[in-house]
């Protein structure tokens, strides 16, 4: 049985549906990528699962952790899961740390809460964690405030704080988006090495396919509040089936592609208030037919593995390349 299991998770804000039934399983120790454009619902999925959305959000469906239901559970039950079993780090590390408390105190809070450590024991453990995430001279810098660290270091501190509860699953919500490119690579390296050392599972939420492929075992691609394709990372890369996934790959600049133009996905993400009646991607899709405009494709298992929600999936990537070359 999978460790965390999401079934038909739906979220609406003020009557506007933003999540249309997400099914996702995370096994113990597994690393899963969740990919998509801003606003597609990848963060909302996990914020909803952990009860971190504002009160006006209407949530239905089921999220279970080893069989324990989280949606609709009492606050105390969800609090016991947060930080201890599922920890989460966020996009903007500098503003995700409380500006008026020393970083040591903020890490210490998790240690006290989840491991009962206080005083010198908590302090030593906090120093060890800061050391582990690569904060130089942690023993002295533990008494500094968040604004005295760079963005990358703040994200390291966030990671240390998440690790303090020894979680079984870490949700990394665009952990590198706000950081410089070189720092991004460092943070991703740190996340994968920590994952190897601790054996915890990880969900990497990102719009950066490169980051996901470097860290994850498998990935799910989301579009307009639905998962449109899921597969293990190698298959997803070599043969994207959904035209949207395909488009995401085509929009990545290639180092060896010379000065050729990038192929962007035309159009914009539809407004969640006015979704098209059929496939949400149909208006932007080069392969869409009339049928796609009026019918909603379901996420279906594929013969050769993976799941796709599309009536006209792509052939393998190689075949598609050839076809394109022929047209050109």
């Amino acid at each position: 049985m999978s460790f965390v299991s999401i079934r038909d998770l739906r979220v609406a804000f003020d009557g506007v549906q933003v999540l249309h039934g997400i099914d996702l399983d995370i096994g113990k120790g597994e690393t899963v990528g969740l990919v998509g454009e801003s606003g597609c619902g990848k963060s909302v999925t996990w914020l909803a699962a952990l009860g971190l959305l504002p009160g006006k959000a209407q949530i239905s469906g089921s999220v279970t952790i080893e069989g324990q239901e989280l949606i609709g559970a009492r606050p105390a039950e969800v609090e016991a899961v947060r930080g201890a079993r599922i920890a989460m780090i966020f996009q903007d590390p500098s503003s995700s740390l409380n500006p008026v408390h020393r970083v040591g105190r903020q890490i210490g809070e998790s240690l006290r809460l989840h491991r009962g450590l206080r005083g010198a024991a908590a302090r030593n453990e906090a120093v060890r964690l800061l050391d582990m995430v690569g904060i130089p001279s942690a023993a002295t810098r533990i008494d500094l405030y968040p604004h005295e660290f760079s963005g990358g270091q703040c994200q390291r501190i966030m990671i240390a704080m998440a690790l303090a509860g020894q979680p079984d699953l870490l949700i990394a919500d665009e952990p590198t988006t706000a950081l410089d490119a070189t720092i991004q690579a460092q943070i991703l390296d740190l996340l994968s090495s920590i994952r190897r050392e601790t054996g915890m599972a990880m969900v990497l939420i990102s719009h950066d396919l490169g980051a996901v492929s470097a860290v994850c075992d498998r990935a799910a691609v989301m579009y307009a509040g639905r998962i449109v394709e899921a597969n293990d990372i190698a298959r997803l890369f070599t043969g994207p089936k959904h035209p949207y996934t395909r488009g995401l790959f085509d929009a990545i600049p290639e180092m060896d592609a010379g000065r050729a133009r990038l192929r962007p996905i035309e159009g914009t993400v539809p407004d969640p208030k006015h979704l098209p009646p059929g496939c949400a991607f149909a208006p932007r899709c080069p392969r869409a037919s009339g049928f796609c405009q009026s019918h909603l494709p379901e996420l279906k298992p594929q013969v050769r593995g993976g799941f796709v929600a599309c009536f006209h999936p792509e052939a393998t990537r190689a075949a598609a390349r050839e076809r394109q070359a022929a047209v050109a």
Partner: protein
Amino acid sequence: MFPFILAKIARAALTIVLVMTFAFVVLRMSGDPAQVLLGPDAPQDAVDAFRERWGLNDPIWQQYLAYLEQILTFDFGVSMRDQSPALDLVLERIPATLAITIPALILKIGIGIPAGVYAALHRESVADRGVIMLSIFGFTIPSFVLGLVLVLIFAVTLGWLPSGGQDTWQHAILPIATLSIGGIGILARFSRSAMIEVLGQPYIRTAMAKGLPWRDVVWKHALPNAVIPIITLIGFMVGALIAGAVVVESIFSWPGVGRLIVVSVANRDLAVVQCLLLVIAASMVVANLCVDFAYGLLDPRLRQKRAAH
């Protein structure tokens, strides 16, 4: 840090000097104390003698220099009306004023902030709407209207409380209520918006994601941040402890600093008005200084900026 304090103190001193100068010039340009104090029918030689006696015939810059010289020797002059030292007149009124402004300040803080925070934590609830409505009501009603309405209800109609004077503690109730209601409204509204702002910050989500109970998220993570802007407002209120009750003291014939201001200005009692303005300016400036230092204690980001100053 040290240069920062010096700069602040220098600025405070400059503010006081400017207020002093401004008060001096305006008072002398805007009316003749001899005419006011002696009355319109006074004989010309009495007026001349009075002007001579108080140096009002000298050029204004000479009067000003003489005044500065006095101030530097801590001599604040004497009242033109009864010849008693101006500073004594002012100081003896301060306790009466503080007797109503300090309890009012305590009520403002003690009711305003909790009400605002509660409203922010229960946004869009009935309680929240109630707090918003009452606070708008509180700070939009001018104190002279509110004071009169309270007198009408509690003194005239119900007869529970005296309408004016300073004889018993019951006499202080209506002035304190009138003084505090506006401030409660302002602080409630301000605390509510400060708290709502803070609750939307990413670090609050982090604190929740950590598994902290909601109570700890509010007390340990939200409030310490929300307090920082609220302190500014409280600073203004502290600065107004001495001078903030002019209208209310007049309504309730409360013999405090505010009454003295009104009477002295009406009489053009120059030394007393100048001394009053000096004391008031000094109290506001000191309150502002305290707020500046409180900021440093509450916000580590500012502390560091100042150290680098």
